[in-house]
């Protein structure tokens, strides 16, 4: 995959990463006898792009679901924006500023692109079902404000042409872009992306990478993504966390991880003893 940067045209700014935004401390999750995550710890700094990689079944999506509040850890804590939590519900995580996309695209298939992204503004809207139902006065004004914001996102993601198209009819690559739009509509501090490049060709991947870079730079959004395409991971990540059979086996810059023997073994396959 080719380099995305236009480094020769821009002043290379050092990556301005902030303090620790989210910290996962000694997390373990089991589903019955299956130990999905075992004592995993890492952190994510503000404005960082962090990739979570690992062979299939390593526990990556479980980790994302954990950060999102879909699962609760059996032991260990999550510290987000300085607050320690043992249990968090998905709607709590959403109002705290965590948004995500899903591996299999969970859009409302009968609704248009525009409407799908508008649903992402849900928590920003304050009116109740009655005032919104009547579509009058303050509710109408708010709808217009939200629409203006969503149009900015549509412009950012270059999806004007499919505004009114029901998302069920869109090709897979565009559906993923719309889902990204819906996540961005929530103005998240932390964006969790579950395999955003899956099923895309090279051109679509390059577009998606460009959007991730741009939103990280323009909006200062921290991004944690699960990804299998090593080219993408190495090109866009500030840091990479590697999981294997529920354990973290590496955590560092893309170059460090690429050279790590433990990572190479995990991907190429070395006989494991059951632990």
């Amino acid at each position, binding site marked *: 995959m080719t380099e995305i940067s*236009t480094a020769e045209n*821009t*002043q290379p700014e050092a990556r301005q990463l902030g303090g620790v935004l989210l910290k996962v401390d000694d997390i373990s999750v089991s589903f019955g006898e299956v130990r999905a995550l075992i004592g995993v710890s890492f952190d994510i700094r503000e404005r960082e792009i962090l990739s979570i990689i690992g062979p299939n079944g390593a526990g990556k999506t479980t980790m994302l679901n954990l950060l999102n509040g879909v699962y609760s850890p059996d032991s260990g804590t999550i510290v987000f924006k300085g607050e320690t939590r043992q249990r968090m519900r998905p709607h709590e995580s959403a109002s705290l500023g965590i948004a995500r996309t899903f591996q299999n695209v969970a859009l409302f298939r009968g609704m248009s692109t525009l409407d799908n992204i508008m649903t992402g503004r849900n928590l920003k809207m304050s009116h109740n079902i009655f005032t919104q139902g009547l579509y009058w006065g303050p509710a109408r004004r708010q709808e217009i404000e939200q*629409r203006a914001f969503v149009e900015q996102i549509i412009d*950012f993601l*270059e999806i*004007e*042409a499919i505004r009114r198209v029901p998302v069920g009819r869109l090709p897979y690559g565009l559906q993923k872009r719309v889902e990204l739009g819906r996540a961005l509509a929530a103005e998240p501090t932390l964006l969790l992306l579950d395999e955003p490049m899956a099923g895309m060709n090279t051109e679509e991947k390059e577009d998606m990478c460009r959007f991730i870079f741009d939103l990280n*730079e323009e909006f200062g959004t921290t991004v944690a993504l699960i990804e299998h395409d090593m080219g993408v991971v190495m090109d866009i990540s500030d840091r990479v966390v590697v999981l294997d059979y529920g354990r973290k086996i590496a955590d560092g810059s893309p170059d460090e991880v690429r050279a790590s023997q433990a990572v190479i073994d995990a991907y190429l396959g070395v006989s494991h003893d059951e632990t």
Partner: protein
Amino acid sequence: MSGGQNIAISGDTIPELLIERGKAQPHRSAIREKDFGIWQSWTWEQVCAEVRAFACGLSEMGLARGDKVAILGDNRPRLYWAMAAVQSMGGVPVPVYQDAIADEVSYVLSHAEIRFAVLENQEQVDKVLSVRENSPALEGLIYTDPRGMRNYKMPFLHGFEDVVERGRKHDAAQANFFDGEVAKGKGSDLAIILYTSGTTGRPKGVMLSYDNIVITARNANRVENVREDEEVLAYLPMAWVGDHIFSYAQALIAGFTVSCPESSDTLMLDLRELGPTFFFAPPRVFENILTTVVVRMEDASALKRWMFTYFMEVARRSGTNILEGKPVPLGDRLLYAMGKVLVYGPLRNTLGFTRLRRAYTAGEAIGPETFNFYRSLGINLKQLYGQTEASVYVTIQPDNEVKLETVGKAAPDCEIKIADNGEVLYRSPGVFLGYYQNDDATAETKTADGWVHTGDAGVIDEDGHLKIIDRAKDVGRLANGTLFAPKYLENKLKFLPAIREAVAFGDGSDYATAMINIDIDAVGNWAERQGISYTNYIDLADHDKVYELVAGGIRDINANLAKDPNLAGSAIRRFLILHKELDADDGELTRTRKVRRGFIAERYGTLVDALYSNATSVTVEAAVVFEDGRKGKVKADLKIRNVDGPVVAEPLRKAG
């Protein structure tokens, strides 16, 4: 629909006319742009203010009279204002095709000695930055869309708003400066340089004066009854003379509103929303729209398909006659009226053509099916013939004299004559001043008394209409003396729905042959219905059944050719289907999508040789340029087929 006030304005130069328009009708919409989902508009007064401010800003940055300023981007109000601003300061705008690759842009920047460039967005800025070192005269770059420009910190790079701000201050300090500069402009001054993409060699810079543009636009408005309440979608490249005349000059002189679409992806949607009254597209766009309609009808319900087939037959019978005011039996009229409600009206609405008063097409021959389709729906589609060197109009078909095979009668004040070798020459007030820095080419094209060689061969028919046959230099002969007009054959080939592009060969050879590009939409759709599976374009283009489909079409064409004794001998005997579409980025087509036959013959020389042998296949390996400018290589084996049976050289006989 009244024509509005139709206030006439009388200035000689574009800036003078703009100022007049701004005073005469300050609150009418001048230009619109769809942005963030809504149409945003500016009045003539607002446009004048923006142009004034930007012009003063440019002047403060150092723009001097006679300086050339490049304009590069999609159709955007700010880019049109930049053009007018440059002109008001006595400078010369030089628009460049927005999809030009860096090398092409570099050529224009250095050849025209461009001092400033107004660029739409980051993509164009990057393009220019990558070739900046080749153009030492280039001093300043101005971008109109700030997205993505956050980290660009070069001192010579400025945002549009910043320049406008500086301009306002400058204007406030020296209130008479702007008007003073505008007053210095004369009708004979150089107004714009338009580089023609040209089918051979490097592009040439056509220099047009204000007189060229203004007089031509005024004449066109008059003879075509263009009014103040026209609606036009500005979607054709700003570097093309047509857009400059239709969306810039004619709009200003008639006072109508021009609308810029949101993006190239949303074009059909925006067209439909706007419902233009005045529209231009090259024939292939009309063909593509027709193909889309036909393809989508295949997917419609049985009832709709029946309605479409039945009423399109009604339209075919009577539609054109009704449009032209000819007698039609009452029964057919009633059927047509029913068709209007059920089919033609909704169809025109979907395409955005409900309000069309006139739709022009030019540049190439248009297929009979396509032409009749639109006219039978009641759309006033007509042909015109023109060149950049003529400020567009050489001939126009009048409303009541629209014919398939001709390009129309001479435009107002335009004289036409046919040379002995069949070449068409013209003379008009729109004739260009010359080619920039290329007196040799100017002398070759324009005679001392102002006649221009078009390079096209044509005849004038009994109604006084001009009929174009082919490029004068391309009309050739087969080895046995038979007339060989490659364009004529290519047009017939392209009128087959399965074929998108074709190149014919045969001059000096024993028989005619062709290289074909299939139309992926039409053939793909056909393949699906036939149960033929394919993975991609190359796969489909290689399929035996597709070859049979094309061969069948060619057999029909040959049968048609056989009817004309002059052309019977140029029947196409062998053909091959190319593995990739001919592309302007690879230099195979011009930016206005005409085939560059010489270039193609050279690049695919091995294929041409194989066509004139008995080979049944040939390997091609060619360098290609991807859309982002990267280079790559493509290799494929192409099948060659005889159209019918083994090929024998035509026995020597006199041309009929």
